[in-house]
């Protein structure tokens, strides 16, 4: 798509683009290229010498049980976050779509988590579930669940999943509400006249028509679980206990900045880049084509 009427100037468009090109050149393309380069190199711990090692970093990576475990952890975590998070948001959105009065009040309260920083959300959840003083941990203890996410891997996982879902809820909710509102009312009315009840209408009309929104949100939630939950993991569990909540992004950070294994960290970055690009392509191929917002 292009404008019919354009301005003509040899230098002005470049001057206008310069700030953005300069910034993405220095802070995006240069480092991204470096990451690619480093993934084929091996550096000693003090950064004194660098050696070209070809695909060795990748070979080492994929034969490392810790890395494969981290993949599994990430997959498990993302599935839980996406499935539970989307179900809850859809449930809320469907009911919010039904009511007439008070929608604004509910919406205002339900979009709050979007504004809360992931790290701050994590700190609040850690407080609630803190084994010795947390009120929720105390309540769980009463009903026979001795909570301790500092020692038990599955508790730590449950904690970061809960915090991640809480944080992402508003986003999913708003998109589902927008999706529901874009479904023509006449369709639903016609079904109602034909005698379809609310339950039936939801499954035969609203849910299928929401599928583009749902697919879009699924991709966004996976991207979120993969990348944006770093702060939650770092602030809530630091990847522990052991490595039980060490998702891929956390491992890139840990190996690069704590363990100082730059080659491996860069190789992991490259793998992650591959995953994001794949997800983006999937989204463009399957979503953008079918959806008319």
């Amino acid at each position, binding site marked *: 798509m292009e404008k*019919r009427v*354009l*301005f*003509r*100037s*040899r230098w002005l*468009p470049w001057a*206008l*683009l310069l*700030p*953005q090109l300069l*910034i*993405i050149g*220095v*802070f*995006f393309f240069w480092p*991204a290229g*470096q*990451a690619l380069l480093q993934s084929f190199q091996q550096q000693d711990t003090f950064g004194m010498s660098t050696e070209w090692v070809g695909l060795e970093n990748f070979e080492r990576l994929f034969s490392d049980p810790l890395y494969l475990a981290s993949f599994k952890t990430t997959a498990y975590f993302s599935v839980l976050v996406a499935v539970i998070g989307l179900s809850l948001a859809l*449930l*809320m959105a469907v*009911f919010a779509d*039904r*009511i*007439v009065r008070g929608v604004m009040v*509910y*919406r205002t*309260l*339900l*979009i*709050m988590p979007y*504004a*809360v*920083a992931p*790290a*701050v*959300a994590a*700190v*609040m959840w*850690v*407080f609630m579930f803190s084994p*010795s*003083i947390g*009120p929720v941990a105390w309540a769980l203890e009463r009903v026979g669940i001795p909570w301790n996410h500092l020692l038990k891997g599955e508790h730590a996982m449950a904690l970061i999943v809960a915090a991640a879902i*809480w944080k992402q809820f508003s986003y999913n909710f*708003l*998109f589902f509400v927008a999706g529901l509102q874009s479904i023509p009312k006449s369709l*639903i009315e016609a079904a*109602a006249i034909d005698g379809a009840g609310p339950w039936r209408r939801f499954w035969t009309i609203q849910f299928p028509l929401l599928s583009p929104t749902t697919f879009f949100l699924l991709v*966004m939630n996976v991207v979120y679980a993969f*990348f944006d939950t*770093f*702060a939650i993991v770092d602030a809530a569990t630091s990847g522990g206990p052991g490595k039980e909540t060490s998702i891929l992004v956390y491992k890139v*950070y840990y190996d*690069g*900045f704590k363990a100082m294994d730059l080659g491996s*960290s860069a190789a992991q*970055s490259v793998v*992650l880049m591959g995953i*994001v690009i794949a997800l983006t392509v999937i989204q463009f191929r399957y979503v953008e084509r079918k959806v008319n917002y």
Partner: protein
Amino acid sequence: MVERRLTLGILAHVVLCLGVILIVFPVYLAFVASTHTSQEIVQAPMPILPGDNAWASYKAALLGEGAGGGSQAAVGRMMWVSLVSALIITIGKIAISLLSAFAIVYFRFPFKMACFWAIFITLMLPVEVRIGPTYQVVADLHMLNGYAGLTVPLIASATATFLFRQFFLTVPDELVEAARMDGAGPMRFFKDVLVPLSATSIAALFVIQFIYGWNQYLWPLLVTTKEDMYPVVIGIKRMLSGGDAANDWNVVMATAILAMLPPVLVVILMQKWFVKGLVDTEK
């Protein structure tokens, strides 16, 4: 709504109320904890209603007088760092994106598509996947522990450029013709016609980018090593390194409330634009 059924209406309100309780509960608890003394909180179960220590907790947090295990930096200073960086990120991103979207939509020049794709590709890779080398670049440019290092690398992404591009494409061509006929050059058209027309998009983006900037975590964690350059989101995490009982939980929770106050206010006050911005930017 199609039909009125009392039971369904009531059910809807019940479900939504439960949802709101689940969403608000952590924030409420943090608020309650921030109004008690740390001794009152550590005696499980902690009180469920606000206490009378709020003034002391918030004062201790703002001035950095807590006895926390990890860090005792003043939250007042951190809030300032967060505010300045969030504003630089927001304004910087909007400014450079307006200019580059204008160039891409309203000019014809060689390598236009190459520039477009170069900008487009930055959408795909979050800073998280290239942290190592980006850190190296920032360190080499001596930008660590400063506002430039905290903000400029985060401006390098193209969400805003795309939103403006989409919007500019919907602006009628007649406006350009009219401006030209009146003898206005491109920059005059940009300043007097295009920017005023974009006001709602700018407002929408402002909300989204402000929250994005305020809530940054991984990047500031790497580039700031001095306490007086910590944004509040980092500061609160550093307070927690003292172990369970050693933390001054009332001060930590007061900090949590303070840290979420500005972005939550921005979202609530600018709800209309926030929703528009969110839905437009992501699609």
